[in-house]
């Protein structure tokens, strides 16, 4: 459906480089990345608002790389919705059909159907300045969808919505877009949002696509150190493969040895980076049977800090290296995990991710 090959696009000093991705019909792809990673540049390049300096973009059977934005049939929902302030809601939604000289009756028919689906029938006569964030979003969505685009690009679509309402809208908007059979590219820096709505997720960093995969692949098994760091994972250790036997690989990272399942070919002496999500480091309770997957990677340490977020606790345990743990807040209270307490932690073996270290980053030191 949407095929991007070796895309290069320059925006000022910044440029997208060698970007490749395929998007199936009616697929919902979310591109995540930190601020300045090129998400909006990518969206603008696909929409035709920025000129691609290399590569190709195909939409269905058409090559659209150098087509004018008005000829691409790709709609865009910008970050702040950018509703035309000189037009009311009806005028905004009908802008596209009128520009394309769609017969008035047909345009009105489309408007009625979309207003019904999006629940904005009562807003049609209102000025855009009177709309709430959620209402403006729906109006902007109606304006984009009324021209029957082959794909829609959503640029941080929930950033102008109140946090309390955001989560409900994630699912509502996804459901509406699924109902209307639209292919979607959605960019955001919010990982929860990406997890909630994306059929597939791409991680864009410094203008390059770092990882592209299903929600589980990207969230549970980052494929590069940069993708892992973007997810906020601090348990990243660089080291060297010291042993390979019986389907397990041992990586020595300074004072820490980690035994992981062998998922691809490694050789002894190879530099490697080990990554463990904080959710996958478990507290081992004394006197309780030890889970098999924790057996190979146990460390004793001392709790040095704890931070509480809404529904989870983030804790740092100092052992031969520092480990970051994350668990539901009630665990903290149940086991009285105060600062200074000595505990034993174990790493879930199946959750350990190893990726080859970059040549310039090879070394035997833990880096968290």
């Amino acid at each position, binding site marked *: 459906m949407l095929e991007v090959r070796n895309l290069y696009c320059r925006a000022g000093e910044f440029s997208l480089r060698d970007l490749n991705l395929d998007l199936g019909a009616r697929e919902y792809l979310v591109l995540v990345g930190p601020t300045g990673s090129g998400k909006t540049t990518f969206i603008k390049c696909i*929409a035709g*608002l920025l000129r691609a300096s290399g590569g190709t973009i195909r939409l269905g059977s058409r090559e659209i790389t150098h087509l004018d934005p*008005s000829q691409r049939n790709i*709609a865009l929902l910008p970050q*702040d919705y*950018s509703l*035309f302030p000189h037009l009311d809601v009806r005028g905004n939604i009908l*802008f596209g059909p009128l520009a394309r000289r769609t017969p008035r009756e047909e345009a009105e028919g489309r408007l009625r159907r979309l207003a019904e689906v999006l629940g904005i029938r009562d807003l049609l006569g209102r000025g855009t300045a009177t709309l709430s964030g959620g209402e403006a979003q729906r109006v902007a969505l109606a304006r*984009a969808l009324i*021209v029957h685009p082959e794909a829609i690009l959503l640029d941080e679509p929930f950033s102008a919505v109140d946090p309390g309402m955001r989560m409900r809208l994630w699912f509502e908007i996804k459901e509406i877009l699924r109902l209307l059979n639209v292919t979607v590219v959605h960019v955001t820096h919010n990982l929860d949002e990406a997890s909630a709505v994306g059929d597939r997720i791409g991680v864009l960093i410094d203008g390059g696509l770092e990882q592209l995969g299903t929600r589980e692949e990207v969230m549970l098994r980052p494929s590069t150190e940069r993708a892992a760091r973007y997810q906020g994972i601090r348990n990243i250790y660089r080291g060297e493969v010291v042993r390979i036997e019986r389907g397990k690989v041992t990586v020595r990272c300074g004072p820490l040895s980690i035994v992981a399942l062998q998922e691809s070919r490694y050789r002894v002496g190879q530099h490697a980076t080990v990554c463990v999500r904080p959710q996958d480091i478990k507290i081992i309770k004394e006197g309780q049977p030890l889970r098999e997957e924790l057996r190979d990677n146990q460390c004793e340490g001392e709790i040095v800090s704890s931070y509480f977020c809404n529904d989870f606790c983030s804790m740092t345990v100092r052992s031969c290296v520092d480990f970051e743990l994350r668990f539901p807040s009630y665990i903290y209270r149940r086991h009285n995990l105060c600062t200074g307490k000595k505990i034993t932690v174990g790493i879930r073996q199946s959750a350990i991710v190893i990726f080859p270290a970059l040549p310039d980053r090879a070394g035997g030191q833990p880096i968290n």
Partner: protein
Amino acid sequence: MKNKLFTLTFAAVLGLLVLFLVILIYSLFAQLHSPGALKGIPRSEVLFALRLTLVTATAASLLALAVALPTAYVLARYRFPLRDAVDTLLYLPVVLSPIALGALLLIFFNTLPGRLIDRALGGVVFEVGGIIAAQFIVIIGLAISLVKSTFEGVNPVYEGIARTLGATRLQTFTRVLLPMSRNGIVAAFLLTWARAVGEFGATVTLAGATPMKTETLPVAIFLSFASADISRACVFILISMGISLAVLFILRKLYARSAQPLL
């Protein structure tokens, strides 16, 4: 104590300036109130100067706006080689003395292409057409600058959205950018119009100062002083001041409705 002194000093400067302007206006009214001041001023002369000024200023401002809209759009939305040089050149009429501009026009109309244009337009030099040409050259830089600032104040995302919805560049310009710039464009028109109404230097150089022919309000003031007719000059000054205040009043109203400052 130091803060109070600072505030008092600055407020005193403001107060003195306002007082000075009030005294200026008062002296105008005092002159007009002197016995027999308004006697012997032909109404037809006043109406002629007023009508000529309004007609020529309106024509020159409309022409300037028609040229400024596409020019400002290109400067505000495109990057091209020598853009800064072009921008600077277009701003030249704003800073160059009006007499110099008028002289440049006069020299141009003495060249072969200038004479052809002069003939094609039915006479420009020392004619009413010359007033419009002089006012146009004086205000065009200001018009472009004001419209360009207005266009730059509109987020290009709106135009991008319109393009993705299927609008052509012309549709985007007429249905998105122009309506969104409406207040700024009206303000630009009013400011350039007010500037054209007060234009003297270039007008007198190109169109001359012929009574009842090329006698705009500023020219009438000049001719009145030249013939030592102070009261007649005061009438024209009063009319000019009324026009200026009306323009400023409308601009203030527009400013109140606009999110962005127009002045």
